[in-house]
């Protein structure tokens, strides 16, 4: 039985709307705001994995922006950005995603606790206005759904130890 990754990992799936919402709400809420949900890009455990579904004809754009993310992390003065870079790898899967999308896997191991892994914020920190443009390029590269799974992970065991 072959199962699509989007279905197989549905529980860890976040919609593009939830993950990429950048626009503030149009009107203030009538009721006192409920406690904000923690950002999905904060990883309180030991590691994190994000499966990104990218349009097949936009992989060059996506990889170009990832190069800028790396550059922004490297030149940041913030120690938490250095810590994020130290454990963050990007992989490309051989297996195709839904609709022919290309699956890029972010592996954060170890995670920088308390640091948010929001690509848009990292780009704007590193490149100011150009960062906004880069983020648009990055967002436009995503397929539908954008994220196959966003998993917050706790280490069970390292088999070599």
């Amino acid at each position, binding site marked *: *039985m*072959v*199962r*699509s*990754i989007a279905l*197989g*990992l*549905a*529980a*860890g799936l976040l919609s593009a709307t939830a993950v990429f919402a950048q626009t503030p709400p149009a009107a203030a809420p009538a009721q006192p705001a409920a406690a904000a949900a923690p950002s999905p890009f904060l990883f309180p*455990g*030991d*590691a994190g*994995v994000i499966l990104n579904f990218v349009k097949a004809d936009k992989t060059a754009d996506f*990889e170009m922006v*990832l*190069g800028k*993310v*790396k550059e922004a*992390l*490297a030149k940041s003065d913030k120690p938490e950005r250095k810590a*994020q*870079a*130290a*454990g*963050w*790898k*990007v*992989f*490309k*899967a*051989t*297996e195709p995603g839904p609709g022919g999308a290309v*699956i*890029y*896997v972010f*592996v954060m*191991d170890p995670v920088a606790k308390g640091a948010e892994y929001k690509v848009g914020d990292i780009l704007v920190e590193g490149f100011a206005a150009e960062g906004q443009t880069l983020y648009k390029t990055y967002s436009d590269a995503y397929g539908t759904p954008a994220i196959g*799974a*966003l*998993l*917050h*992970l*706790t*280490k*069970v*065991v*390292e*088999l*070599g130890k």
Partner: protein
Amino acid sequence: MLSANPAFAQAAPAAPAPNATPAKSPYMFTGDAALTVNVVKADRTADFEMIVGKLQEALQKSVRPERTQQAAGWKVYKASEPGPSGSVMYVFLFDPVVKDTDYTPSAILAEGALEDVRPLYKALSDALASLTILNLSLVSDFSK
């Protein structure tokens, strides 16, 4: 992406046709790294973690150097997010992959086993609701 069925099938297959090429194991990883998402039934997590422990033991006591290398790059994680129908997701991360070496759990368990490992195969098969396997090529290591 594969379901648990092909990866963990234990039943004897029908005799292959003459000159048939054996199917390549999905646990022979071809890239720099690999990731599997093991969706485990909620009431079988203890069985699954027990088997992970047996895998660790088998890898560590193996006299084959490639098994030691496999163990060195193999980490097991549990996801905070629930899987479908309340299942529990365990992620195996293999980084780096030992090329041309089979990571099939049943084969590792069977190597050097002094006990009958068939109950372990069955427990593993029974615990898994589904399995996703991804072969990965490194695009960028942000630390370098």
